[in-house]
């Protein structure tokens, strides 16, 4: 054979042989590649088949209009014959508002609904890349607006409380030129704390007696359902993130005292179950406050849940901080950025981006954990409302339907959050070539 070769004509592309393409190829490669594989495929098909055979009639015989479980069963028997099973969604249809709002007064449903819609406006800076600047102010004011809408009462309490931040800003502005950022910030915080401790109540009271403006007050006992889960979840999520970041920075700091305090806090919170913290909120928090002082149970629970989430966020963020190469800190130093600017402009944006999956899964965990507040007698949707509904003689003995309903909503929210985090991760990716 000659070792010389010279191609005169290029070969056109050809389609692969018949066994290598189309459905046959796909089935062979993906379902029946080996005997073991084929066996597993058959087993899974059987499992799916038996699930469907069991569930299909149950969903097929669904009843949407009935006033009691008894009636539901009669309708199913009448339609599908003796012994047939069927879902009774009539319960959901009749009681959906309790699953959503708990025992919140029905004529005031517009208030939580409005607060929920405004939440998305307030979230705009997070959701969209270039929001108008004024929206930041709205985001800042949103907690007070939401509080006012949800609990009602006098308008002055949230207004005066927000003024505390004004005081903080004012003190900072006045002093920052003279004493530097650190001192000015601490004095600003001190001034605000003094304002909240001593001026807040009296001033709000005074203004209230001068011009009583407000909405009908709604008691915390009446809160419930997904509204409650979302209130606790959103509050804890939004406050735990900054707190968690501070704790993570503290833990990474080279100041031993600051570090020890942060580590102690984080490890303590992470070491005990959330339930014990919730019981702390409901049973023993009073011991740590001045004699006779007490405050709303939802607020107490929110504080403890925030601490809980913050400790986990801190660990996630710490991982992100540790993953940054040393050179980033050095480059920031070499450019003359001070600690807080370097953190804000260089370190945290990158560390948080790395931590997005961890942060979001902490948030998902937190949102799922809001179901635990039922153990301190709050009406969250899963156990609180469902038990309340099932206690009704009309609906005694029903369990699958409410659990499926609540489970689906939780799934949609949590799955949505995790997908959003994946999208966000992709969007923020800048190290592609």
């Amino acid at each position, binding site marked *: 054979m000659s070792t010389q070769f010279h191609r005169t004509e290029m070969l056109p592309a050809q389609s692969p042989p018949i066994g290598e393409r189309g459905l046959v190829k796909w089935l062979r490669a993906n*379902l029946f590649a080996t005997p073991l594989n084929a066996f*597993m495929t058959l087993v899974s098909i059987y499992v799916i088949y038996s699930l469907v055979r069991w569930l299909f009639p149950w969903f097929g015989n669904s009843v949407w209009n009935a006033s009691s479980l008894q009636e539901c069963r009669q309708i199913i028997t009448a339609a599908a014959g003796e012994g047939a099973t069927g879902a009774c969604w009539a319960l959901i249809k009749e009681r959906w508002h309790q699953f959503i709002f708990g025992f919140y007064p029905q004529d005031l449903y517009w208030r939580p609904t409005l607060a929920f819609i405004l939440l998305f406006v307030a979230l705009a800076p997070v959701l969209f890349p270039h929001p108008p600047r004024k929206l930041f102010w709205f985001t800042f004011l949103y907690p007070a607006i939401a509080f006012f809408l949800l609990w009602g009462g006098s308008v002055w309490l949230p207004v005066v409380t927000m003024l505390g931040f004004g005081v903080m800003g004012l003190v900072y502005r006045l002093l920052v030129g003279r004493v530097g950022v*650190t001192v000015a910030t601490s004095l600003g915080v001190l001034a605000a704390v003094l304002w909240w401790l001593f001026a807040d109540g009296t001033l709000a009271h005074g203004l209230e007696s001068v011009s009583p403006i407000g909405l009908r007050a709604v008691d915390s006992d009446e809160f419930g359902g997904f509204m409650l889960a979302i209130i606790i979840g959103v509050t804890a999520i939004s406050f735990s993130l900054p707190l968690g970041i501070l704790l993570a920075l503290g833990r990474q700091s080279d100041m031993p005292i600051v570090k020890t305090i942060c580590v102690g806090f984080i490890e303590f919170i*992470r070491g005990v*179950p959330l339930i014990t913290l919730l019981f702390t909120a409901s049973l023993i928090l009073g011991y740590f406050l001045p004699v006779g002082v007490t405050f709303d149970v939802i607020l107490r629970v929110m504080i403890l849940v925030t601490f809980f989430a913050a400790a986990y966020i801190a660990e996630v963020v710490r991982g992100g901080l540790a993953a940054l190469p040393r050179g980033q800190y050095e480059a920031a130093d070499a450019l003359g950025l001070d600690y807080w600017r370097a953190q804000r402009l260089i370190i945290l944006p990158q560390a948080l981006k790395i931590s997005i999956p961890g942060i979001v899964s902490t948030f998902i965990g937190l949102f*799922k954990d809001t179901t635990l507040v*039922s153990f301190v007698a709050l009406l969250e949707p899963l156990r609180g409302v469902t038990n309340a509904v099932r206690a009704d003689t009309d609906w005694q003995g029903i369990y699958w339907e409410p659990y499926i309903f609540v489970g689906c909503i939780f*799934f949609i929210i949590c799955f949505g959050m995790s997908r959003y985090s994946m999208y966000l991760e992709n969007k923020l990716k800048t190290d592609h070539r």
Partner: protein
Amino acid sequence: MALAADAPKDSFRLSMLVYDTRFRSITIQVAVLILFVLALSWLYGNVTANLAAKGRPFSFDFLWVRAGYDIAQRPISYTNDSTHFRAAMVGLSNTVILAALGCFFATLLGVTAGVLRLSKNWLIARLMTVYVEIFRNIPLLLWILVIFVPLGELTPAPNAFKVTDQMIADGVEPAASMILAGTVAVTNRGTYMPWAQLEHPLPSGWLTFGAIAAVLVLSFLANARIVMRARAVQEDTGVRPTTWWKSLLVLFTPVIVLLWAMGFHFDLVQPPTRFNFQGGILVLNSFLAILIALSLYTGAFIAEIVRAGILAISHGQSEAAFALGLRPNKTMKLIILPQALRVIIPPLISQFLNLTKNTSLGIAVSYLDLRGTLGGITLNQTGRELECMLLMMMIYLSMSLIISSVMNLYNRSVQLKER
């Protein structure tokens, strides 16, 4: 070589506290410490004032008072005449049992699901994805209730299994029958199943337990020796002797012999002739529900960890191993697995930690674990909220710290040596 004197050139000014790197961190720390101590003393003052206002001292004396309540599942001996402390210990052991079994089953499930999710079989991989996503995105509490409520409301009462002489004479079947070849009975109280029993155990329970443990440890040591010798032979001659049958023999024979000598047998469940089942062991529905829910829930998380761990080992590693001529199974054992484990174990242990803390959800099904006893009935009976809660938190905290220090030890031992 003379060193320049390091004397400060300018005298101390107050602004140096903030602007001098030598003092700045001390200034900040002192400020933080002062605030921290102030906060602590404020809290301490409040606690003492509150206790004084309620007229009760802070004391753990109540632990030595008669508890007076019953606990259905008691791994250590306990009657309602025992002390609250004893009750708490029963609760703690219930927590530990639940956590240990939960970790075991969750790992089993999770590793299986995680590996299957990477399977080339399209259907299996999808099914496992559905399992993982469903369980990760729905609260654990829902799974506990979904399993517990039907267990209590759909299953027959124990007396439905009743078989009396009269019924046998009349040829009447009992209303409910046992499953799995008549060995297990699922009732609305719990599940009765066969249980291991020793005909003639050693004089005390601890002694029996100790003997079995000692034999197991010795077997493991002997096996380690066999493996070590095999390695030595391999290093000397290049050929590794076959040892698996020796290992099996050494691992299992001694303990089987010991159990046989003590008269090991399964105690079967007899259907009730009057009220209750005879023999076997009763596994409470509450325990079963939370164990199943915890295993399925945590298993879904572990599946993700295992999957990510295997994916994290770059394709290049197995290619390099193949290029060196290692077979796929050796590549798995020598290259992939050691690296994947390094990635998997830390988050796996933190899942164990979560599972252990989640056992406290036993509250949803009134399972009397540490929270149910010390933080539940004892707390309500004695009204010692502060003491009970503090003690309970400390116990949970110590459990967590023990688990995480084990993790840290492991991490340190496998850390890649890098510059």
